[in-house]
């Protein structure tokens, strides 16, 4: 509802972000904890195993979990510091109500939930069911993701439910479904260890998935060659055998040219292509003109390097191709993904030991969360909401007539656009901070200000929730039982180490309470998280993401189970496609022709420099959690503008000079970091910060036509040095407004 109730400074004073540090001699009780809880990190898709030390219902420290097979105790800095989100002074302890001119005041749960119920009902009666929307997120467990999907469709009865996975790996999901009929990385990561060639495309593994580095380094110890595709020399690229410094927005040209090279040099697995795939001829026809010279011109990579990379990939007998947001955050995200898959299929290196392919899912439960139905076009088990069969099955599980099940709704960014247009009037958000994470966030702010009613569920008051009318104090990762599915497709157990403090409640209990108030109590009668999971098992049964055979006990006994797992005696599936039976209707893997086209915005005279965005190792997503942890903020206190010395010289920019970066959507000021490790035509800004320090003031909302992912990774900008040298530590960016 409209603008902030009070100045942002006042909100920050009351609700943070404030920085949390461990006391000098540790939290009391760390040496003799009441419990050591085996659970997982709350951050990225690796879901590293970790043990939390608990004393008096507080997390007081951690101890590495040496036995968990993926990470064997290894952690990144975020994982090491994750325990500091507990015991945090900014933690919301009561439901809050907006008070004009004052800020937010604590209210009772009844007051808050009655108001939410009344507003949902009022808006839906006045403007229609779909005028109330829900934005969810995939840091939630499988149980909560499933619950949000059911809550939206059965209790709120809106079709407008989407999630922040829309900014994450939807392009990969869409590409994988097209090619394989199923959306999961094909192998677990131990298969990396003996791959001969590894391509890492648009994935800053060492900063965003640091613990995955181990498996890539293991492979290299065993002699693997590493090819890294990235506009910057990322830490992984420094020692890589080949680094392809690609111009942002031109990825599909590179993969097209590499495919043509494989075809021209007959580095193909004809048996595999003939017997297990379709669409090969159309696909190679699409790349017939993509010569190395052409690719050099488009991508800005020397043709010799492309040739070298293609030859290296072509000759290998085992390989693994990994990609992430770098190729997915594009208006051609799906095409880029398909370009990669074509390279895998052409060489037939899939469905065998040490032959793998996959996207590296970014968010904590980016994998599981995108399978169980809080996506606007999807139902549990990765079912399609427009498919009558699928609708019927899920309606049956939920005990509602199929006709009452809403249809496909708007995707996350389209939803913001609909709010901006005034078509959608109400919003419930959980686990999503779009004011930092969506592109062109000045536009997002305008949209938020137009809402008639906005309720946010969160454990901290994030930047977006400052616009809310009601904030419901929900639960942290370590406060609820559940499961998540890691980027490998391994379903693991999340443990409740502590219970929510003061009057905060578990997210699940809040949703169940709301569902009851909305008149759907009989459809939401779970006694605990396991009961939700057991319903999810049934709902996913027969779907591609089949969890039916997975139980809490089985997960605990095996430290995780890989889906698909169709029956209780099934061991799970760490490696897909060993039987060469793909999940497509015809059982074959599909080549998809990819024609190169330009990104949504290209450079011109007015905006001559390519801007790309990304992440840093010490922050996670929009920073709601990590911008509150003192040492993580200390590691990288502010976003810097990475710029090549030649480009810097052209504009007369000096090291750490403040530079005004402008695009057609907004401007921001960032200190320059002049480094030779970036392309000469491209600048880079990490995006985790809010307000004036937000890179997403600049980015563009062009969407991929299929996946509807926004084009975070490329737009056009101009640079102006401001003549002021900023010294480190002079500014605080973690609470920028």
């Amino acid at each position, binding site marked *: 509802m409209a603008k902030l109730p009070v100045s942002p400074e006042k909100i920050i004073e009351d609700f943070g972000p404030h920085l949390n540090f461990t006391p*000098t*001699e540790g939290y009391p009780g*760390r*040496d003799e904890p009441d419990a050591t809880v085996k659970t997982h990190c709350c951050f990225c898709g690796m879901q590293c195993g970790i043990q939390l030390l608990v004393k008096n219902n507080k997390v007081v420290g951690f101890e590495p979990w040496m036995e968990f097979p993926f990470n064997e105790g290894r952690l990144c800095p975020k994982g090491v510091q994750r325990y500091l989100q507990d015991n945090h002074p900014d933690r919301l302890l009561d439901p809050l109500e907006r008070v004009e001119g004052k800020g937010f005041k604590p209210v009772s749960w009844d007051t808050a939930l009655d108001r939410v119920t009344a507003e949902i009902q009022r808006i839906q009666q006045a403007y229609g069911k779909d005028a109330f929307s829900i934005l969810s997120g995939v840091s939630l467990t499988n149980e909560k993701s499933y619950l949000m999907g059911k809550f939206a469709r059965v209790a709120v009865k809106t079709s407008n439910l989407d999630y922040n996975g829309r900014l994450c790996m939807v392009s990969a999901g869409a590409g994988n479904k097209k090619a394989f009929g199923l959306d999961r990385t094909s192998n677990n990561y131990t298969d990396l260890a003996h791959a001969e060639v590894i391509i890492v495309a648009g994935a800053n593994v060492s900063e965003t998935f640091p613990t995955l580095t181990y498996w890539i*380094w293991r492979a*290299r*110890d*065993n*002699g693997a060659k590493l090819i890294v595709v990235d506009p910057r020399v990322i830490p992984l690229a420094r*020692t890589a055998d080949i680094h392809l410094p690609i111009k942002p927005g031109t990825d599909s040209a590179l993969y097209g040219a590499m495919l043509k090279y494989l075809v021209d040099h007959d580095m193909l697995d004809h048996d595999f292509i003939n017997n297990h795939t379709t669409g090969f001829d159309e696909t190679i026809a699409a790349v017939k003109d993509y010569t190395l010279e052409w690719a050099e011109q488009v991508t800005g990579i020397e043709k010799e390097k492309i040739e070298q990379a293609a030859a290296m990939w072509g000759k290998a007998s085992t390989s693994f191709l990994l990609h992430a947001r770098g190729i997915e955050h594009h208006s051609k995200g799906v095409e880029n993904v398909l370009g990669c898959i074509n390279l895998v299929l052409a060489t037939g290196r899939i469905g065998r030991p040490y032959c793998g392919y996959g996207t590296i899912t970014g968010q904590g439960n980016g994998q599981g969360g995108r399978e169980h139905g809080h996506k606007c076009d999807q139902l549990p088990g990765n079912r399609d909401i427009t498919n009558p069969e699928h609708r019927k099955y899920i309606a049956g599980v939920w005990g509602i007539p199929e006709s009452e099940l809403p249809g496909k709704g708007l995707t996350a960014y389209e939803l913001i656009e609909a709010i901006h247009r005034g078509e959608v009037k109400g919003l419930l958000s959980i686990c999503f901070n779009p004011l930092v994470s969506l592109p062109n966030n000045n536009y997002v702010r305008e949209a938020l200000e137009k809402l008639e009613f906005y309720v946010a569920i969160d454990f901290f008051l994030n930047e977006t929730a400052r616009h809310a009318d009601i904030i419901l104090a929900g639960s942290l990762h370590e406060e609820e039982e559940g499961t998540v599915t890691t980027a490998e497709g391994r379903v693991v157990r999340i443990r409740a180490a502590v219970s929510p403090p003061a009057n905060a409640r578990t997210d699940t209990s809040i949703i169940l309470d709301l569902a009851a108030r909305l008149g759907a109590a009989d459809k939401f009668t779970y006694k605990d998280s396991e009961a939700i999971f057991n319903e999810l098992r049934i709902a996913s049964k027969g779907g591609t993401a089949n969890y039916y055979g997975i139980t809490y006990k089985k997960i605990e006994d095996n430290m995780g189970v890989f889906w698909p797992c169709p029956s209780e005696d099934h061991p799970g599936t760490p490696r897909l496609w060993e039987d060469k039976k793909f999940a497509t209707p015809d059982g074959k893997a599909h080549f998809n022709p990819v024609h190169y086209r330009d990104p949504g915005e290209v450079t011109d005279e007015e905006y001559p420099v390519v801007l790309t965005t990304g992440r840093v190792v010490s922050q996670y997503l929009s920073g709601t959690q990590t911008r509150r942890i003192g040492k993580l903020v200390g590691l990288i206190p502010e976003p810097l503008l990475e710029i090549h010395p030649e480009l810097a010289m052209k504009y007369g920019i000096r090291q750490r000079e403040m530079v005004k970066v402008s695009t057609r959507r907004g401007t921001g000021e960032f200190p320059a970091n002049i480094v030779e490790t970036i392309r000469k035509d491209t600048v880079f800004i990490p995006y985790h910060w809010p307000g004036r320090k937000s890179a997403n003031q600049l980015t563009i909302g062009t969407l991929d036509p299929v996946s509807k992912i926004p084009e975070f990774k490329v737009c056009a900008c101009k640079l102006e040095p401001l003549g002021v040298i900023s010294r480190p530590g002079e500014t605080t960016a973690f609470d920028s407004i």
Partner: protein
Amino acid sequence: MHASLNKKALLVATIVTLGCVVISFYGSRKLQNFDPALIAYLFGTLFALFGGIYRYCVWLQRPPTWMYFRRTWQFIFKGSFFVHIWLLLEDSVKNLLFQRFIYPRGKKRWFAHFMLASGCLAAFAITIPLTLGWINFTLDPGTALDPGAVKLYNANFFGFKVMSFKLGSVLAFLIFHALTWCSWAVIAGAVIFFVRRLTNAGLIASQTFEGDLLPLILLIIISVTGLGLNFSYAFMKGMAYDFMSVTHAISVILFLVWIPFGKFFHIIQRPAQIGAHIYKREGKKRGMAVCPHTGKEFTTQLHVNDLKIVTKQVGFDFTLEDGSSHLDYSPEGKRSLLAKAHLKARQEGGSFFG
């Protein structure tokens, strides 16, 4: 630690100890003011003095220590003497009297140390002069014989009257019980430390019994028996007085004898911190060293130059082929150089991995 006898140290320690005996002899007015009950303590004190000085001299002769010692006095006597003395006093009050540098490590820790240190130093200040007969208390002869007058006590230093106070006055109470206050302070500090040492995992891992726990136990025994003597005398009609008196004496003497060798030597060492401050302050005035790798200042040029000498004196030579030194680089520069050399070796080896 030092197997052979150090002649210089022996000489200095002997001279100082003899000097002390002479001063005490005359200070106690030829033993007139000397309290024979304290004879055991006297020998303990003299031994501690001898051992402390000996150890101190041995310590000073170590090249790095000597360098600091020499530089400190050199700087104090060169340049503006009074400014130095002022800063030195200021530093001494802050760091020696109040141990302010401990405060950032933990408030409780500082409090404990402050209590311990204040208690010990005050107790030293009282007992050592008493033991050596430098101080004694006498009933004022003028009031002693006058039954109507309020009794006055005189405190004498080297036999000279320095002050007098009324018997039964608050001041008298404070002075006669000074050691009681010291004891309580020491007990408070030592107990806090003791509990900390038993519960902090980091300390448990790195402490030793004789180096860290025994000194605390000893201090607690001294203080408790000291208090006990008083208590027994005042309230228990002397019960267990002898036992406590003997335990007290043994523990004090142990403590004194141990000063030169164990944990307590740091009391004597600590003023060197002030020297290090002067060294840094003066060095800054003379100019900073700039790391050839990082291009940043990292310490004083004086420090780098002195370290080149000191490292050679202790058997290390970081001189490079071009005549410069590895010590010319900052810590970050040194780490980067190592990493660069390693990178080069890996590149020449043809593989980063495996």
